[in-house]
């Protein structure tokens, strides 16, 4: 019975079906299954399968994103139960994701958020047009390990530098790593502003975030 449920959970992630994954999470709660078991032995199995298929070139980005969304929805459903039991899902790290001040572009940033979330990071996505101080305050509030900064314009890209300088001034650079991205961001820029990590795409961003956490 529970084995069958776990398999269905994995399949719901593979299918990228949030409705089903939420329903299965509720079922697990109803029959008293350990929520951590549901995540680890059920939903995560599906995430890994999609991840492997993607790496092999058999699955594409939309499937990866849908799996991520279905996973997120399932975990959100199980969260109250986890809290009740006082157990916590192991996280790879806490990340604040934000598009910088003056910039309203967020597709790439949201994609990175989804990918990080699906890969086991705890992500707080602040959306667009965020002043540097607000981003830093949020990072302190959730005790973030990483800040991810997105910018699409050369004129707003300078805010990435500003956040790093402000972290520096407050002595937070060692505590909080900064990764940056966006179409105009180049390796030369990353070196110039001394960011800790950079990727041109969302898949790469997950690898960079993992690396930043491992390096600590």
């Amino acid at each position: 019975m529970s084995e069958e449920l776990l398999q269905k959970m994995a399949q719901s992630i593979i299918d990228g079906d949030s409705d089903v994954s939420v329903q299965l999470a509720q079922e697990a709660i109803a029959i008293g299954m350990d929520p951590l078991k549901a995540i680890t032995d059920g939903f995560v199995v599906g995430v890994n399968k999609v991840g492997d298929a993607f790496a092999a070139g058999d699955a594409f980005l939309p499937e990866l994103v849908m799996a991520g969304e279905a996973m997120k929805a399932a975990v959100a459903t199980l969260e109250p139960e986890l809290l009740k039991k006082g157990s916590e899902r192991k996280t790879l790290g806490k990340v604040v994701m934000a598009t910088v001040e003056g910039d309203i572009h967020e597709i790439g940033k949201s994609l990175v958020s989804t990918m990080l979330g699906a890969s086991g990071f705890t992500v707080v996505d602040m959306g667009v047009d965020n002043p540097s101080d607000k981003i830093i305050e949020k990072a302190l509030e959730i005790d973030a390990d990483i800040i991810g900064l997105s910018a699409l314009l050369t004129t707003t890209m300078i805010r990435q530098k500003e956040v790093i300088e402000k972290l520096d001034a407050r002595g937070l650079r060692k505590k909080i790593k900064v990764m940056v991205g966006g179409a105009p961001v180049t390796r030369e820029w990353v070196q110039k502003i001394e960011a800790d990590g950079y990727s041109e795409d969302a898949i790469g961003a997950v690898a960079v975030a993992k690396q930043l956490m491992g390096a600590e």
Partner: protein
Amino acid sequence: MTKNIKSITNPKLKLEILTPAEVKKIHNATLHIIENVGVRFPSKRALEIWAANGADVNYDKKVVKVKPHIIEEAIKKAPPVYPLAARDPQQDLPLDGNHVYAGTDGCGVEVIDIQTGVRRMSKLDDVRDIARIADATEEVAFHWVPVSAQDKPAETRGLHEIKTIWENSTKHVQTESIYNEREAKAAIEMAALIVGGKENLRKRPVLSLMQCTAPPLGHDGGSIDAALLAAEVGLPTGFMTMAACLTTGPATLAGNLAVGNAEVLAGTALLQLAFPGAPVFYAAAQTASDLRNGAYTGGGPEDFLFGAATNVLSDYYNIPLSMGSFATGAKEPNWQAGIENSLSTFMASIVMSDMLLGLGFLHGSRIWSFAEMMMDAEIFSIIHKTMQGIVVDDENLALDTIANVGPGGNFLAQRHTKNHMREIFLPQFMDRRPYNVWEEKKDDARDWALAKARRILAEHQPDPLDPKISAEMAKIIAANEK
């Protein structure tokens, strides 16, 4: 013939990419989207204009929903034909549906240095060098701001860029890198200096503004405010959709066209509601995101189809089109660059898109290459020649000459041959040498293209901008830096 500008005109080739019924269907879908889903306009001024014209405005979400007849009647007020004026009036570009002009692409962030070959961040001197070379290159009819002047302050960067282009070229400038009200106001003042007063800009718009939409179904507030200012003084203004299948648009091509069309049409209607009769253009560079990493691709069959389909839409609305072509995703000038830039430009040209963007980039409009710029110019020339098609008349059938030569002879020494041989396309960068000659240096198009760019840069002296006007422009910029 416009001075030192080559454009495609009176083409013989034709393509029906969408039937009239299909265009109507996309149009109706677009109106449905604008009426029922809405378009986001995060600008107080824009929302007030919409409200005053009977649109359903949600001030919290900054989303407007508009009845089809409001959109359709507004679009009808747009002028179908107008010129892009140049500093040199002999280089004015009539946007009349019978010309295809190519411009430089924009706005990149890196440059392969013309002398050292090293890739580095772009700066104002690059804008200058590119403008100079474009000034001397007949395939370039107008300028976009090619790369970002990242050595200038962010708040006046867009102004430094257009000043530098005007100082180094007499051709029309279309900026895509001014997207807020303050900079737009200053840019208008600068353009007015060239034509002797703001009131003359309507007749002689030496500057046009292109604003990117914020897809899906949105606009950027600063862009909208800048566009409204430009439209008010009669500078040609366009909104560009870059709706991308999978990410900012549906995976399907028709759906992606409809989403992008809704963005452009709503923005254009807003300008017409505010300033009826203001010169506007449609701008687009739709694409399909890469299936594996979601990246902007800058090429591929979907791009080619969008390139041809969009002019059918802008023709339906009777406004000119500025269409993204070229702009390969290749990392260096290679097989991929050749395919993508040739096919995208051919497809956008065969339907007579008015303006093509543009020459010079690698890696999806991010890295400027002077060699690629020159090779893109040659691609445009090849398509220019191809578009002329095959002329069939007595002179071209050459029956007398064929009889003169008879079976087994050759045509080399015929007067008819001499009369017509210069109609045959003579490439600058294609390698037609004997194999052993190639073997000596193994050089190719890339070497010759770069050498040509270097030669132009060393030798070409553009007609200078009046130093007094330059000084006045500098004052305007300085006032914006305080």
